[in-house]
Structure formats: structure tokens, C-alpha cells
């Protein structure tokens, strides 16, 4: 979906965070191969750094940037820095099949724990649950207390309809799941109870997940259904309404975010075209609902535009606001 679109799966946010973290760590570690070649290629190195900056700061990642990165990757496929930035780019593009191909090109013996987890998450995203199970089962059997392996295996069994097996692997690491407040795992455990018609345990588990995230529509939706089945129409309606409200709120914030992105691009285009009055109008429109981290740049745009228009007084006022933000 578009740049503002919501995550498509319970786990995508988690996956993305993990990959960015890996990128950050790996990029500072020593590359194993191709390092000297890349170090000597100043142009490629500079481009890689620029692209890494875009990815690490969560900016939109233009197709032209990806094509540029692809050329570097094709030239230095064994350089760990390049590989990590490339993998991060694939995640940013939500190109799950390409991520799978990317990880599978790494010989199995050389795949790290992170590679295995990411591959498992790709299978989860693509709905290939048997492959997820095949990948995770030996890992979870070996590392019985590894929360990530066990939880991923639990998800695999859950989505393929094998409730008892799913429950087993979530329960293996339940204490950690609860202490780490893993809301997706807790919610899925609640769904397993629901599928097994164990409504008291399902209600208890969903309530636990709602304590962590009150906006969890998966939990409110099924709670509503449980109460309807149990002939408790008031409670069913309460949670039905709550589910609808959560969705409504989500849609509104998505729509707003989409509008903001569009305004940002209009602003950048106006700046490029030296339409300074337009830049000022657009920046002021964005400011009230802008993220704190974006506000300094917006004041900078305003100040520079006033300066270009010869209005030093307004330019100074904008710079003053900028200074306030910095403090």
C-alpha cells in the first residue's frame, strides 16, 4: 500500500525494527569480504553511506536509490556492509520474496540466528507455514527456552490450524512472553483458546493483551464474538463498538499521515521550483501536526524562504523558533 499504509501483519513492525537494528550493528562491524575493494571504491562507499542514511532514518526510499544500491550489491555481493544495507532495503520495500531469495543465497552453515529468524518471518509473511515449521522446529527443539524460535514456531502452527502444537510452543516460553509484554504472542495465544472453545482462558488472555495495548483490535474483536456466543449481548456490543472505534481511529490517523506525506512532497517541489511563498504556506500547514523531529526542518524552510523573498524580519522570527526547538 502507500507510504502511510498500516502494517499488514502483527509482526511486520517487529521484523522491521529487528532488521534496522541488525543493519546498525553490522554496518559498524568489520566486513569479511570485498572490504578492501569497497574501501578503494570511494564513489560506491559514499553512495552506500548515503543510502544507509536514508534507510536508517526511515525516509522514503526511491526506486532510483534502490537501483543504485543494486549496482553496488552486484559489484560487491560478499561485503557485509553492502549485504546488510541491501537486506534492509528489501525490507523497506516489503519485497518478501526477494528477502527470502537473499537469505537463501547465504549457505545454511553461514546463516546467523538473525538470518534464520528473518527467514522465518518472511515465511510467516508469505503464509508459507509448513516451511516456517520445518525451519523453526529443529531450532526450537534445540533451544527450548529461545522465545523467538518458539514463538515463531507457535505462529506457524497457529496459522496452519494446528492449535495444540501452537499452544505447546507458546507455552514453552510463556513467562518470557508475558514479562517482555509481547502483545502479538499473547493475543495469538488467546486466539488458540478461542479456537479450542476455552472461552474463560481466552477472555483472561485477551484482557492481558489489552492491558499492554488497549488499541488491540484483534483482542476486542474476538472478545466481542465470545460474549455473543455466550449470550451476553451487552458485553458483545461493548467490544464490537470498541473494535470499530479502534479501526476508525487507525483510518483517521492513516489518512492524516498520507496527507502529510503529500504536503511534504509538494513543499519539496515548491522549494526546488523556488516558489518561496508556496513553501511558506505549505510549511505552516504541515507544522501543527508535524512530528517533533521534522519541525526544525520546516522552520528552516520557512526562514530560508523568507530570506529569499527579502523578508529578513520573518526569516529571523522563524530562526528564533528553530533555536527554541533546538534548546
Amino acid at each position, binding site marked *: *500500500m*502507500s*507510504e*502511510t*499504509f498500516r502494517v*499488514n*501483519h*502483527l509482526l511486520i513492525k517487529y521484523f522491521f525494527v529487528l532488521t534496522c537494528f541488525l543493519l546498525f550493528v553490522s554496518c559498524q562491524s568489520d566486513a569479511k569480504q570485498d572490504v578492501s575493494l569497497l574501501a578503494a571504491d570511494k564513489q560506491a562507499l559514499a553512495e552506500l553511506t548515503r543510502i544507509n542514511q536514508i534507510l536508517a532514518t526511515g525516509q*522514503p*526510499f*526511491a*526506486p532510483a536509490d*534502490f537501483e543504485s544500491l543494486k549496482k553496488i550489491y*552486484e559489484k560487491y*555481493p*560478499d561485503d557485509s556492509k553492502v549485504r546488510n544495507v541491501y537486506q534492509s532495503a528489501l525490507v*523497506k*520495500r*516489503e*519485497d*518478501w*520474496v*526477494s528477502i*527470502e*531469495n537473499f537469505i*537463501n*543465497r547465504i549457505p545454511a552453515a553461514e546463516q546467523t540466528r538473525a538470518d534464520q529468524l528473518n527467514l522465518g518471518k518472511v515465511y510467516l*509473511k*508469505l*503464509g*508459507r*507455514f509448513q516451511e516456517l515449521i520445518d525451519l523453526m522446529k529443529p531450532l526450537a527443539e534445540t533451544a527450548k527456552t529461545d522465545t523467538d524460535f518458539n514463538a515463531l514456531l507457535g505462529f506457524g502452527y497457529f*496459522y*496452519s*490450524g494446528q492449535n495444540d502444537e501452537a499452544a505447546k510452543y507458546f507455552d514453552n516460553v510463556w513467562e518470557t512472553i508475558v514479562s517482555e509484554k509481547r502483545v502479538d504472542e499473547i*493475543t495469538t495465544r488467546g*486466539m488458540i483458546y478461542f*479456537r479450542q472453545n476455552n472461552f474463560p482462558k481466552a477472555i483472561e488472555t485477551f484482557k492481558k493483551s489489552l492491558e499492554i495495548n488497549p488499541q488491540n*483490535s*484483534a*483482542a*476486542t*474483536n*474476538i472478545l*466481542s*464474538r465470545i460474549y455473543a*456466543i455466550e449470550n451476553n449481548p451487552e458485553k*458483545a456490543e461493548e467490544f*464490537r463498538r470498541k*473494535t*470499530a472505534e479502534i*479501526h476508525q481511529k487507525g*483510518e483517521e490517523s*492513516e*489518512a492524516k499521515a*498520507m*496527507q502529510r*506525506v*503529500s504536503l511534504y*512532497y509538494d513543499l519539496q517541489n515548491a522549494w526546488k521550483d523556488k516558489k518561496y511563498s508556496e513553501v511558506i504556506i505549505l510549511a505552516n500547514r504541515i507544522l501543527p501536526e508535524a512530528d517533533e523531529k521534522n519541525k526544525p526542518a520546516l522552520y528552516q524552510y520557512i526562514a530560508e524562504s523568507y530570506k529569499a523573498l527579502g523578508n529578513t524580519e520573518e526569516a529571523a522570527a522563524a530562526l528564533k523558533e528553530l533555536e527554541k526547538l533546538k534548546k
Partner: protein
Amino acid sequence: MLLVCLNACRSENVNNADTQDNQNRTEISFLEATAKSGINFKHEPTRTEAKLLPEIMGSGLAIADFNRDGAPDVIFVSSGATGIKDRAENAKNRLYINNGKGNFTDQTAKWNLTSTGYGQGVAVGDINGDGWIDVFLTDYHGDNRLLKNTGEKFEDITARSGIKPDGEWATSAGFFDLENDGDLDLYVVRYVVYSKEIQQKAFRNKLLIYPTPISYKPVSDKLWQNDGRGNFTDISEKAGLTKSPSKGLALGIGDIDLDGDQDIYVANDTEANQLWINDGKGNLKDIAQLSGSAYSETGREEGSMGVDFSDFDGNGLLDITVTNYQDETTNIFAQKEPLLFYEMSDSVGVGATSRRSLKFGIDFFDADNDGDEDLLVANGHIEDNIEQNSDSVTFAQNDTLYENLGNGKFSDISKSAGSALQEKRVSRGLVTADLDGDGDLDYITSNNGEPAQIAVNETAEKGNFAVFWLEGEKANRSAIGTRLVAKIGDKTIQRQIMGAQSYLSVSDLRVHFGLGQHEKIDELTIYWAGSEPQTLKDIQAGKFYYIREGRELMPFIPGEKQIAN
């Protein structure tokens, strides 16, 4: 050297994926037959650089026997250009008349099929009981048209029918008998409040893309009540629709709770889907959320585009399937207990491959005449530049065919089910019908900005069949809403005549039964909509039958002669 290795490794991975899919072998086969069919329709969306939302929606098509010769004819809706009432020649709707052998002739002009506004969907049904199937066309501008079939041509009777244009974006529509009074009422699904002046630009990685409806307000659907003579009254408020505006794209109508009246399922784009249960008096209540058919299993609203019903698992209760956005599954809402649904796309074998496509039209149909319904899905992305943002997702996509394995599971057989499924298209509308009268079901897709596709069923080893064309007396003439229960050996199969399904489209109103190896239907009970049931025994396989309510079977050969009105 490194580059060679990289490419080789990449190929290996792709091949592995293909091998995995190709394990799903089948006898079912659909062959590309567009060129020899005589159908040369090409949808015209007038896609612009501004990437206006209507331009990517595509359009629908309808199968119906407009000249009563027993052969399924087809109407294709084209779109045109937004803001322009009169269509250019290349953007006109088309009517193709079938000779019963799958050879079609363009008779658009002869039948005076009109084309106005920016076309979207189509519904068919006999609104005045005169034996001729009438047509309703929906329009992005809300200037929908009701066309009366005189037996020789269509007359635009919108103005005198009481159906008024209101400027709101209409998508799918369906005729059905709301209160079982013997005439066809009309449900019109509507989308969002939109005009190009308020279009919100959308981007993916700095690239301008076609938007989703997220930024636009929803519109409530319309329900038009027929007085039996083709005069319609707006009863949307009385029926309870106006309080629940939503972003509707598709419509399924059938007796979900088997209480003898017609219920309505609306697939909404990025909002909860609706299941309107009919109390038999024309009052509707949305129970989708409480019944478990509103959201994905994880409680998410999805980008829903198409819908169909079938008792795919043979438990006697109708299940609901809904097509959704890329990365979302094609929902299979299995009705395990009356009005209690469980979303089971992953566990029945539809989930994984459905996530790979952006899905629109959908149809349950028995592709191999084995008595259970298989599932066909029309695919195509909405971002015409998606290839710039992904190495694995494309704008044009292959359609998907799932074979019902008979044990409540499906298998994706697309890659081994014939040439028709091997080419990528931007598919939208989808219908199924026995176009060539050979006793198996074929299909047609309408494709955004591309020629339509006609695919003929050439499955070598298939079961026997029996096809029924029903016409009501007390029940509505088109028999929409009628349920048929066939006892074949130790198997019981039920089918319903649905006034709407798929995306912006309607499939054949005739009922097709696959009998497997059986030579006859032992007993067929017809639950005429709003009328008395009728039971027929020992119906011989391999024939097409016409049944007027309460009378005996009359075999016919499609396209041979006009059936007396």
C-alpha cells in the same frame, strides 16, 4: 564472475519455487479462446498521469440469456473518461450474442445497449416478469441506468423507473427478491465520496501511485424496492442501510441462514465487511462482526474487492469467500455453525498463494464436474508502477485456480491448469458459464485497460453434468434466490441462484451440477424463492433442462431455438 554466480543462484531460487507449485498436478485445463470466440472487447479506463482513483478500478461483466435461445450471452461494461458523460467509440459497453457453441457476435448497436458516464458494474434480472432479462448499469458518477429488454433491444427506462441519479459512486449491484413477493428488487453498492478535485495524492517510496480509499468518506448503499411493474422506490433508510455507510465494492446475495429469504454480504475496501441478515420483511441487520465474517482472523479490516458463496466443505451451510489486497489472503469464512464463521484461508490451503496477488473477481464453480466447487480468482495490482518498487510483485498478474480436493481443502493448480492461466493480466471482473454448451463451465475476465479474456474448459477427464434454467411463476421470473438440492448417489449437493457475486459482475443464472460418474440426479428439490418447493426425480445426466415453476422438465439445446416465453 561474481555476477554470474549471483544470477545463477537467483535462478535456482525461482526454480525451486516453481517446482513446489508444479507439484499440484490436475486434470483440469482451461485454454485461451479469446481470438476464436468473436469477442474483441477491450476495457478503456483512460488512465492519466494524475492517477485518479476510478481509473484503476476496472469494470464488470454479466452473463445472461438476453434472447431466450438457451445460450449465455455477455455484456461487458467499459469505463471511458472521468467527468465525461458521452463515451468515445472505443469506450462503449458491448453486448455479444452467443450461438450456443461459444461463437459470439457483437450486437451492441442492434440491441441499443447504451454507454454513459464512467462505467463500473452490471446487474441482470427480469424486473417485470415478461421473460426478458433486463439490465442495470452502475456509474462512477452515480448516473446509473436501468435498461428494459423488449426481446429485441434495450430501452433506457431509468427516468420512469423511479431510480434517480444522486452523483454518488456506484460499484456492484444485484437484483433479488427482498420480501419474497415475486418481483426483483435492487441492491446498489456504493464506494466513497470522491471527485478528482479532492483526490489525495498517494506515494510509495516517493513514487506517485494510485490511491486507496483511505482518505475518502464512505457512502451508504441503496436499496430499491420494485412494485412488480418495474417502478422502484428508495427504501434504503427503512431497511436500515443509511446508518452504516461503508466503502463497498462487491456484493454477494443468497440465503446465508437458510431461512428462505435473501441475505446480503458486502465486501468493503479497507473497512469492515457487512453481512445483512434479512428478517423476511425487508428489514436488514448487519451481523458481520459478531458472526466472524467482517474482518481477517486477526481482527484487521482488509482491502476487500470481491465475494462469492458456496458450501465448499459440504456441511450444508453456505460459506463466504472474499478477495483482498496484496499480502492479504482470500478469506474463506467457513460457516461451521449457523451464522458462526471462522476465517480459514490458511488452513484450507488458499492462504499462501493468495497473498501473492491483488485479488478482485472471484467465483466458486465446479470446474471438473466432480460435484464440489472449485475456486477461480481474477488478479491484478492497482499500482501500475509497482515493478519500480518491487522485484517480485507485478502490475499484471496471473489469475489463480484452486481445485477443491473434496475434503474441505483446496490446492492451487494454476500453473498446471492450461494456457489460459499462464498469461499475466490486470484482471478485475470475472464470470463463469458454459459458453460452448459442452457441459462444462468456462470463464471470462474483464481486464483493466486490456482485452477481455475468454477461457474454455478443456478438461479431459471430467464428470457428467446437468444444467437447469429456471423460471418462476409465483417466484420471481429469473428465479433469483431459488435453492436447489440434488441427491446424487450418496451425495447431497446444494446450489443457489445468486443475483450478484464476484466483482462488479454477475455469472450465469442457470444452475450447473457436476455429477461425477453418476448417470442421473436421483432427486432434485427446488426451493423456489418465496414459493412452494418442487421435487423432481431421476433426471438424466448430460442435458440442459428448462423448468418453469411447478411444471415438468423440458430439455433444450443451447442456441438451437428460442424458448417460448
